[in-house]
């Protein structure tokens, strides 16, 4: 993965607009967050291989970035995106890694379903 360059990432987001795509979206502070610090309220969300079509996508802000997808009847967004890559299957993988190198958020877009 490389650090987000807004113009490049924006071009890739635009490529998938108006097409049926599969989405992976995840936020997490780790299963052990509350074990290591009982003050932490552990919350997260995960969806994988939900199919949708977006009409507009934007990457916004300084790093860590926000990425939002506008759907005909709704929205998808992720906050904290630091890195992205186009993988060997032409999937757009975006992720936010915290200062210690742990993934905190991921948003991925693919024309074919992700593995299980």
């Amino acid at each position, binding site marked *: 993965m490389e*650090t987000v360059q807004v113009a490049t990432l924006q071009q890739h987001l635009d490529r998938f607009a108006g097409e049926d795509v599969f989405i992976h979206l*995840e936020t*997490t502070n780790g299963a052990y967050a509350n074990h290591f610090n*009982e003050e932490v309220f552990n919350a997260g969300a995960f969806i994988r291989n939900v199919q949708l079509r977006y009409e507009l996508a934007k990457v916004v802000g300084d790093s860590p970035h926000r990425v939002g997808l506008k759907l005909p009847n709704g929205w998808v967004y992720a906050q904290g995106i630091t*890195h992205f*890559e186009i*993988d060997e299957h032409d999937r757009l*993988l975006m992720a936010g890694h915290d200062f210690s190198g742990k993934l905190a958020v991921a948003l991925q877009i693919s024309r074919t379903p992700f*593995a299980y």
Partner: protein
Amino acid sequence: MTIPHEEAVLVIFPHPDDEAFGVSGTISTYIKQGTPVTYACLTLGEMGRNLGNPPFATRESLPQIRKKELQASADAMGLKDLRMMGLRDKTIEFEDDNKMVQLVQDLIDDVKPSLIITFYPDYSVHPDHEATARAVSRAVYRMPQEQRPKIYAVAFSNATKDDLGEPHVIHDITEAREQKMGAMRAHISQTAWMLEEMEKRLADGEPEAENWLHFERFYIFDVETSKYQ
């Protein structure tokens, strides 16, 4: 130093590396003693968070990396019967409970263990650990009493010592020290941070750092009194 003989040992954990810190010395010692050991690993740790910054892997490439690490850990321990069960990290508690019991029962029927090593329900923190522990408890309880294997359970939640007291079983794994270090190193994508810290403490001669290379601790789990039957 040996540990008590078993006919066959079945280790059931949800994540590659769950065996490394607390059980790999025991696995290696059983193997050295000629006891057949099967390790069923339920997922490939697909949702691991240690991807580095700059990242060395993506959410999509991580499973293949961890699969190789798991195999390398098995090789380090001398383990021949490694089974990857194909579930997805962080989803085990949402699977059908009876399907999970059946998965465990099928493993038991096949391996015929005299001992199962897994997590202790309600004291193992991660939702996948807990779901694995519940499935094992239920599967073993539902067996005819005289056929049930023993369960050695790993517990490490913050309430463990207060509620369960001291571990019931302590294995001296000193002679498997190298194998244990090998298993820890095999899972380098997940253990790099811990190992770095540990090796510093070992070099400083801290007794606690030495401790985990000599002893592994388990609670005997009794399905008769379990909440999960």
